[in-house]
Each structure stands twice: as C-alpha cells, then as structure tokens.
C-alpha cells in the first residue's frame, strides 16, 4: 500500500473494528466448545469459566458416541452436503456458461427467471415439496435432501458464476473452437479452471447453510437411518430434560468437518471475493 495513504489512526481503527467483530462472532462458538468439556453442574454454575481439573469431564462426548448412530448421522450430513455441492457446482456452472456464452432468444429472460430463486425462499414451498417427495417415494431418503438443497443453491450459483464467466476471455474460447475442441472440453478444460475462485466462493456460501439446516431434514427425512447431524443432535434436547453435555459435544463435533472443508476452499474463496471487488 502507498505509504502516503497509510494513516496510522485509520489502520488502527479498521483493525480494532475487525478484532471486535471476530470476538463477537467467535464468542458463542467459544462458549459451546469450553462447556462441552465440563460436567453438567459447572456448565450452569459458571458457563463462562474454562474447564479446570475439577469441572473437566468428557461425559458429553461419551454420551454422544455411545447413544444413537452418531457416525451414521455424520456420514449422512457429509453425503448430503458434498452431494448437493457437487450438483450445485456442476449444474450451476453449466447453466452459467450457457447464459454467459451463447446468444439465444430469451437469454436475459432465462437469467432473470433463474435469479428469481434468490429472492424467494425455498421454504415457502415446503408443503408442495413434501407432497412431491411423498408421491415420488423419496421421503426419508438422502436424495430428497440433496435435490432440495441443489434447487436451493442453484439460483445464486448461476448468478455468481455467469458474472465470472463473462470475464473469461472470448479469444481463449474461440482459440479452442478453432483448434477443434468441443464445447464440453472448452467448458471443462478452459473455462472451469479459470473460474475456480468463483466456484469456491459458491461452494462455501452453500456449504454452511446446508450443513446446519434443520428444517428440511426434520420434514423430509426424519427416519433414524437418514438423520443428519443437526437433526441427530436434537435427540438430546427433550421437552422436559435436555442433556446439555451431549448437545454441546455434538455441536462441537459438527463444527469440525465444515472447518475442514472451509480450509480447503478458503484460499480460492478469498481470491474469488477480492477479484470480484476490484474488477
């Protein structure tokens, strides 16, 4: 950065604001994680205290691992999240390529129609979706969730990706055409690698809401063998008694895979966000 423009006070204020924001954002997570390592009494007596030799307890984790098929829930969540992301990215990118690259009648209209999904929350259609799933026999399958999340993620994916695909040089695509590459190879080999940062952005934006969602698993796939992690954690929350140790431990464990996926995507993500900002 230019030394003349660098104002100490401004830098300080900016960093201060960011630090405060980080603290606020991380605080609930921090509380969940420290309390998951405490026994029940200490959780309620001093919720903000760190676990010490007296209050330290792994009882929550033991309950979680013993009770219910926690690994199965884990696996279900993973399948649903990764499956949905895969379909969102592949179909979103293909639709975005068509909208960005080809001139056809109704191109703009089609783009607007797809963007409509950004403004209308998919949960409004829950009843209709449930009826459809019942009729197609998809209730209580992971496919029900994957399909719904794919539909939910596509509008934003198409919108973001088509914007990025317009920036890919026309000359490059034309060079591929002159060299005899098929449209599919141009798409997969030339265009997709160049919009990788945008793909990572879309993946992260979609991943977290899907992983955390309780609504659709509860309605479309509540059966034991297809429960997701978020839904599975609810068994510890009862109407009269709640096993807080277990709930907090389950939530702490649920953070890990999302964090792992985020680390994988994050380098690309930051590039995606900033390149969109300066261009």
């Amino acid at each position: 950065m230019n030394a003349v423009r660098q104002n100490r006070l401004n830098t300080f204020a900016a960093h201060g604001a960011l630090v405060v924001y980080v603290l606020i954002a991380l605080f609930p997570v921090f509380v969940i994680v420290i309390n998951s390592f405490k026994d029940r009494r200490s959780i309620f007596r001093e919720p903000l205290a760190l676990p010490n030799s007296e209050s330290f307890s792994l009882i929550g984790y033991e309950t979680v691992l013993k009770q219910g098929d926690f690994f199965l829930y884990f696996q279900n969540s993973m399948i649903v999240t990764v499956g949905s992301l895969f379909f969102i990215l592949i179909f979103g990118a293909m639709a975005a390529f068509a909208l960005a690259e080809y001139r056809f009648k109704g191109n703009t209209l089609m783009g607007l129609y797809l963007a409509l999904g950004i403004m209308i929350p998919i949960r409004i259609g829950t009843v209709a979706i449930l009826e459809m799933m019942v009729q197609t026999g998809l209730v209580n399958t992971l496919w029900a969730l994957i399909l719904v999340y794919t539909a939910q993620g596509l509008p934003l994916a198409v919108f973001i990706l088509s914007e990025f695909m317009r920036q890919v040089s026309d000359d490059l695509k034309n060079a591929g055409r002159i060299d005899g590459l098929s449209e599919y190879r141009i798409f997969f080999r030339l265009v997709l690698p160049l919009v990788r940062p945008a793909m990572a952005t879309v993946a992260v934006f979609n991943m977290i809401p899907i992983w955390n969602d309780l609504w659709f698993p509860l309605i479309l796939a509540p059966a034991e063998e297809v429960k997701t992690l978020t839904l599975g954690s609810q068994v510890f929350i009862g109407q009269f008694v709640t096993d807080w140790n277990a709930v907090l431990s389950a939530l702490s464990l649920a953070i890990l895979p999302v964090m792992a996926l985020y680390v994988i995507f994050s380098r690309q993500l930051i590039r995606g966000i900033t390149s969109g900002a300066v261009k």
Partner: protein
Amino acid sequence: MTALTLTDICKSFGSAEVLKDINLTVEDGEFVVFVGPSGCGKSTLLRVIAGLEDATSGTVNIGGDVVNNTPPAKRGIAMVFQSYALYPHLSVRDNMALGLRQEKQPKAVIEERVSKAIQMLDLNAYVDRRPSDLSGGQRQRVAIGRAIVREPKLFLFDEPLSNLDAALRMNTRIEIAELHRTLSASMIYVTHDQTEAMTLADKIVVLRDGQVEQVGSPMDLYNNPCNRFVAGFLGSPAMNFLKKAPVDIPQGGTLGIRPEHLRLQKGGRIKGTVTHVERLGGDTNLLISTEQDEAITVRIFGQNATAVRDVVELDFDSHLAFQFDGDDQRIAV
C-alpha cells in the same frame, strides 16, 4: 487459385447492421490487411471468415469450398488473437500441438511440425514453460507458432501487435512479414494501425461502417484514394483538408494535401502562424493555423529552426494535391 472469396456478406446483430454487402477475394499467397477505425466491422468480418460468427447472408468460400456451415476447426484456417489466447494450463509445446492432436494427426507428424515451428520462431528455450512465464512478445510468437503448425490454407490475424510495446511491435511486424515470405501462405490481417497496413500488405481493404471503401495495393491507396475518408486514413501524419483553398475547387468541396507535400517557401500560396513544433530529429512536424483559420500539418524532412508563433508561407505542387466534392468523393483533375 483464390484462397478466399466473400460474396455479398451481410451481418447484423439484432437491428444493427454491422457488415453490408461485402464482396472480396484473396488470391493464393496474398497478404491482405483489413484496416479501418474501431467499430468499422473489420474484426466481425474476420470472425465471419473464421466461422466464429455466422453471416446473416452471403457465402464464404475458402480454397474452393463453400464453408458457411463448416465449423471453424474444419475450415482450414488458423487464427492469431490480440490477447494471444494461449491455453494457460498447457506448456508451449502442448499449446502448439493441441490443434493437431484434435485432428488426430499421427504422433510423428505432430512432433515434426511442432519442432519446425519452434525452430522457426526461436522458441527453443521455452518449450516446457507455461504461458504465464513468458513475456508478451514470446506469447505472441507461441500464438503464431500454434497457427503455423496447422499448415492452414488461410492465416487470420486479429490485431496481433496491439498488446505489444512499440519496439517489440516493429520487430514482430518484420517477423510476420518474413513468415509470409517463407511460408508463402495466404494471410488476412486486421488492424486499426495504418503503419502496419502500409508496411505489411500486398492488398489493403479499407472498411468504414461495415462497408468496403476501397481495395488496392498500399501505394495505390496512397496515391489514388477514391474519397476523403481513405485519403485521411492512410498516411501519417494525416492529410490536410482545406475548405478555403488557394486554388479553384467546387462549391462545398475540399482540397487535400499531404503534410509531406507542403514546403516552406517565401511567397507561397498559403500563409499561417506556427502553433506547435514536433521535432523528431529525422524530420520536423509543424502545426500551422492558416490565415483562414484552418489547421494544417507540414512535415519537413531534416531539422528546421522554425519556432512557435513564427509566420510562415507555404506552397505545394498542384499535381500532388487532391480535390474532393461536397460528398467527399474524389474529383479527377
């Protein structure tokens, strides 16, 4: 044999007509340059020839075959783009070989042609590098190499030098001219730079607003422009146009004199005041405001002591001046 024949080519995007009734032939081994101001349709015309755009009407005939419905890869053409358009994930060698691999050429043929092109373009040291590790000039050479290896019936260049700096532009220009001599291939070259057009072309096609204004050899167009647009577009500095001329011209017409045909001369027919002097060492450009308040440029060979605000008198040989009528068409004198 003709390398390319265009018959009545029209192209419109929606209601905007970009190309209007283009008729043109390119002979075998000819270097043809499309030149015109930006937005005149020259790049679109090139893309129609390449098959990247479909003509709205008219036929494109390459090497004796009508190719209107042939995909770009099967037209026997190769194209060099302004932005190089190299494949970022492939090495220099693979960039060149990709087109041949797509054609399913035998390995030995690919190897031989690529090596030959690498030799010809002096790219030996870079064969395994990625495009991102090359300079602009090297990238453009790789792009040219990618075109050469396909041994096309017709080379298409889309402003290949626009992204290079001035010194490199001249070197690459000479390389392209040499390439044309060695390969004796038919080439079409699009540019907005009249210097490139004048120095490279066997035949220049001047385009304006989607129409062909004039076709001819560089010296033809310089010596005999058919209208004021062509006269003003070719030659640098551009031709001077005088409404209030010291000789008889038709009502509403103009007199055109090239800067290099004007000379300082006591008692000359044009009087004016020098408003700016550009000293280039080899020659000197004087910008002069005439008594009739018209701006003219004079190009004097060698160095000259004339200073700003000097009052000068100029003259010219009448047979070197052009006359244009009210519709900017040339009048034979």
